């Protein structure tokens, strides 16, 4: 049974680097009185370090078979929320529980080493999941097939076009059958034919009663792919419901 349960999640980032600390402090106090824009959640924590409140009091649960879309402006906290669900950022406060094998497609490089060839990256992923040699070969065939890479399999990933990288990463992340798939909006880099293929694959995954959480700016994608949309604003949930309702409200705002 795949399930996600988030309870009062809070994520804050410390701002350490950069010399203009006093400047940041000034900005923070200025902004604290007028919380409007996406960057307005600067604050000072109890040890008077400057922190950015990226997510505040987020609570929701996702049950088996749901396809959830995250929508919101830049800096609303979509990527951070995905990373928190993937266990990359552990909660500063609150609790995150995820049941089921995770597949994450979050980074632009997607956890692949650009210097290594496609095949070597597949090998690394197989080691990560502890696959045996035979399964690994089958996986490599499956991914090469899905991604249409043929001759490029033994070339470094950095020589790939962005569409090829996306296809390889997507094939890799979905070929190991995650029960919970977390996906950031980068996958829009594929062409129309790829999106069609990707949707078929995602639908096959979701038919296996798994969970998809995807963040995007594009309302069309959400309408086509999702059964539920969560609208994030300034690190808080503004609205959570059926795609039509949330998208209408979002586009109207």
């Amino acid at each position, binding site marked *: 049974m795949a399930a996600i349960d988030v309870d009062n999640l809070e994520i804050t980032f410390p701002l350490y680097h950069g010399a203009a600390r006093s400047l940041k402090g000034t900005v923070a106090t200025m902004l604290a009185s007028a919380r409007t824009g996406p960057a307005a959640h600067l604050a000072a924590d109890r040890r008077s370090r400057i922190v950015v409140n990226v997510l505040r009091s987020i609570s929701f649960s996702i049950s088996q078979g749901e396809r959830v879309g995250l929508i919101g402006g830049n800096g609303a906290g979509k990527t951070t929320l995905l990373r928190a669900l993937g266990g990359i950022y552990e909660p500063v406060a609150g609790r995150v529980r995820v049941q089921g094998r995770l597949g994450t497609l979050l980074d632009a490089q997607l956890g692949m080493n650009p210097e290594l060839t496609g095949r070597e990256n597949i090998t690394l992923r197989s080691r990560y*999941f502890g696959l045996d040699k035979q399964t690994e070969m089958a996986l490599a065939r499956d991914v090469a097939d899905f991604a249409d890479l043929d001759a490029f399999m033994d070339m470094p990933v950095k020589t790939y076009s962005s569409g090829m990288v996306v296809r390889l990463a997507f094939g890799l992340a979905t070929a190991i059958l995650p029960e919970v798939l977390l996906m950031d909006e980068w996958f829009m880099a594929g062409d129309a034919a790829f999106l069609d293929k990707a949707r078929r694959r995602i639908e096959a995954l979701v038919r296996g009663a798994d969970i998809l959480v995807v963040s995007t700016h594009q309302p069309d994608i959400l309408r086509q792919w999702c059964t539920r949309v969560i609208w994030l604003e300034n690190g808080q949930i503004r609205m959570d419901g059926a795609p039509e309702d949330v998208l209408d409200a979002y586009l109207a705002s």
Partner: protein
Amino acid sequence: MSGAPQVPKSGSPTLDLSPLRGFRAIGAVFEDMFGAFSLLPLALALGWLDIKLRYRGSILGPFWLTISTAVMIGALGAVYGTLFHMDLRSYLPFLSLSLVLWGYISTLVNEAPSIFSQNASALHAMRMPLMVNVLRAIIRNTLILLHNVVVVALVFAFFRVIPQNLLSVLPALVLWIVDSMAVCVLLGLIGARFRDMPPLVSSVIQICFFVTPVIWKPSLIHAGAQYLLIDPFYPLLEIIRAPLLGEVTGVSIWAAAMVHSLLVWILAIGFLARFRARVAYWI
């Protein structure tokens, strides 16, 4: 779906994350370590690919490591032999072994502060035990060491030095690996937070090279030789060097090595318990 994905669904693993304090934080440290050891094949592949990548496109590949070490030791031997008229038969085996071992120490310690910060994109892409990065660095440097050991073996064979007490080298190697992990964790965590660490560490290690009996023999110090034991690198070098050169390792040297190891491990576990979850935020 094209070509049926073949991985069987295992029992659903559960991720349960909340801020941890005290013993639960230390428990998470050991969870991280066990997780990393179960991913040892991944760390091995990563470490090996690091070396392969560094020498991709070169004909001799990683054997450049062996050759450059051989050239350096041959040149030093020629200089010391002809210029300083030193007894090469006793000095060169000592020097080659010391330099190769020191090469491992200094490279690993120099790389340690950027272990986590350099892998930012991988650490932000998927959840993985932090210790995997540490094991990868240790494996990479061990592979380099193995390439260099060939030169030492040749020098030993040439001067007919026969290692004795080989049995005590085994626990020494274990202690080296154990210490390497703690040092990488400690410096890696500090280096993830403070970007001044790499240059700082490299200047300190440079001083250590001259202070520690690496190119000079410990027997050169007549009074106050016991103070050498405070230098953490000296006992560490000596527990491998002495038996290989056919000398006997003193009990005090082993004791000092153990004490240093214990101290650095206590620090490493404390730091990892406190800051493990923060690394992703820092880098």
